[in-house]
């Protein structure tokens, strides 16, 4: 080896955590802006990654800009750690960063998720990165992004209320599914990932930081810790989470957690807790094995941990 070679650093095909430092710097600046203006969609350049676009590259860029060798990373898709795309993203993050990985929400410092927020209450110092396909809550009423940008600037959300009202008139109830439009910090309406309505209240006054990032659409936004998040609702027609009160997990018998409904050959359905990390710990505890389960957003009777935030459902009038 020549003297010159000894002086040079060894060849590395990619930067630490894949993104070059300019990309990381840009992302970190955009994240700071997003945290400073809760719910505001911050445009960013969005680099191509060795993962297909639309498969979590927005969340992945945020994760790669935050991850360090000391991080403990959890990745879920539909609540499951072993879902094929979650496994692939986790494998990539670990390979590029050397970070530890976990399936335990309580142990994770950095949690990337598609479509779910875990059942156990996340705490200060934890960051939740949500993958977002469409960051624009106004898309259904205004597809031109320069116009919807103006509407956000003016807090012009009248058309969103109108959509809710029309649903009420036609169907006697609000019909937004996942990604229920919500007002952050009393200012910006966001499209929350698409997480189910069950998870939307978990963003309100949360102890953890939530970053939402859309790679294709090149926008990221944040719900900082201890920020108000309220789903759009009329005073007399309260927001409702999915009604799964009658469903019990087939393995543990647990209720009042978000469930997967699995059609059965004979016509009925079986139910299973969607958060596999939580389910695993619950099952281990029932088998008498040691496992530390944190407090959950919804208790065993289905009460949400912020008293009075969720109101009892109002039955549609005939």
């Amino acid at each position, binding site marked *: 080896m020549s003297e010159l070679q000894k002086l040079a650093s060894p060849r590395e095909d990619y930067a630490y955590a894949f993104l070059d430092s300019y990309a990381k710097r840009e992302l970190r600046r955009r994240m700071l802006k997003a945290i400073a203006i809760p719910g505001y969609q911050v445009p960013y350049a969005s680099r191509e990654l060795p993962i297909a*676009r639309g498969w979590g590259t927005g969340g992945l860029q945020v994760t790669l800009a935050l991850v360090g060798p000391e991080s403990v990373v959890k990745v879920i898709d539909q609540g499951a750690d072993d879902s094929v795309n979650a496994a692939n993203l986790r494998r990539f993050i670990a390979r590029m960063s050397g970070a530890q990985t976990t399936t335990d929400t309580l142990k994770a410092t950095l949690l990337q998720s598609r479509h779910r927020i875990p059942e156990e209450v996340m705490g200060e110092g934890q960051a939740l990165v949500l993958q977002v396909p469409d960051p624009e809550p106004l898309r259904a009423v205004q597809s031109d992004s320069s116009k919807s940008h103006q509407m956000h600037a003016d807090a012009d959300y009248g058309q969103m209320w109108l959509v809710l009202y029309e649903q009420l008139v036609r169907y006697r109830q609000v019909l937004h599914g996942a990604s229920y439009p919500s007002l952050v910090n009393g200012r910006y309406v966001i499209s929350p990932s698409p997480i*189910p309505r069950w998870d939307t209240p978990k963003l309100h006054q949360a102890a953890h930081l939530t970053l939402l990032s859309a790679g294709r659409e090149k926008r990221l936004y944040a719900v900082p810790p201890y920020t108000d998040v309220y789903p759009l609702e009329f005073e007399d027609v309260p927001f409702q989470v999915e009604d799964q009160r009658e469903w019990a997990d087939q393995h543990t018998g647990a209720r009042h957690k978000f469930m997967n409904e699995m059609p059965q050959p004979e016509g009925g359905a079986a139910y299973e807790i969607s958060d596999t990390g939580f389910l695993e710990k619950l099952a281990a505890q029932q088998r008498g094995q040691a496992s530390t389960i944190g407090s959950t957003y919804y208790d065993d009777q289905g009460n949400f941990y912020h008293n009075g935030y969720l109101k009892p459902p109002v039955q549609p009038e005939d």
Partner: protein
Amino acid sequence: MYVAAKGGENAIQQSERLFHALKGEITRELIHEIMNTLPYLVDRVMGEGSLYAPELAAMAIAQAGGDLYEAVLLLRAYRSTQPRLAYAEPVRPETMITVRRISAAFKDIPGGQVLGPSLDYSHRILNLDLLDGMDSLDPPADPSAHNGSAEMGTSANGSSPSANAAARVYPLVADWQRGQGLLKPTAEAQPRHGADIPDVTRDPVLFPAPREHRLQALARADTGGVLALGYASMRGYGLIHPTVNELRLAHAEVNVQHPMTGEIFSAGRVRVSQAEVATTGGSKDQPGLTLGFAATLGWNEVKLIAGATLDMEMSQPNPHPAHTEEFVMYHTEPVEASGFCIHFKLPHYVTFASSLDNLRRVISTFYAGEAAQPSSLDAMRQASP
């Protein structure tokens, strides 16, 4: 510590192994075969990948088993990590080594119509002889060898057209039109450093986009996507008939400044192509011709004619909804469009469950105790945003 979460991990690795097992082996010879025998395929991938690297593009094509969207993604994902070492000098069409330059706007133009390499006037007949046992295909016969027609350009030995060599410089058709007062004179361009030019791969995209973003997006755009939207404009949803003012295939020098000596030198040559379309039916407040322009790395004529037409459409005051800048730029992005399309293979059972919950509430509100009426439900599904 790395937690392998049960089945998913193993499944994805086996799936990738099976994909590679079902296609042939990749060798260095194969990569060079692809480069040499399929240059238009390599060009298309380089153009959409926006990285001029024939060997890497051929590698990407081979590695993806010929799946072009995968190949473009491979190239893009590599490109996105590469540092900017230098900014090249602008390439001027007059100084490119032009091998094909045609204009549909005039019978003849200064510098001449140069057909160059093209399949445009070939008979599209499969050469089945090769499959029937012939060792290799003869190239098409050289017509000048038989009739010695001066029109085609003959030299002493009868096979090389060098005696009737084409012009070295091809003046722009648009320059002639400017001289005739048919086109507005070009505004004097202020010299700019390359780093100051907006870059669609490094800047957030906002609308209205700077013209640089638009042209860069067209250069990187999906050939099929640009063709679909461009064809829609040409066929009847557009306002204007595109006349090909000038189409060029060329080799361009990549001239960069030496960091130490300050000398400008050529770092290599790249294949480039550009198309300019013109219309006489532009905006009312501008009496002259209106131009549309597109250029890309590699030779890709269909994409550029469609792209230049879209450029012209996007500049109109009230374009068709499918020809607005936002619509064109977002929906012709190959990596994003293909990625999002195939992402629907991913599980969506959480969001589906959330909608199903709504559906059941409506059923119980309107049809409690009776069987659901499918026709009414259809109406309800459509109403849900």
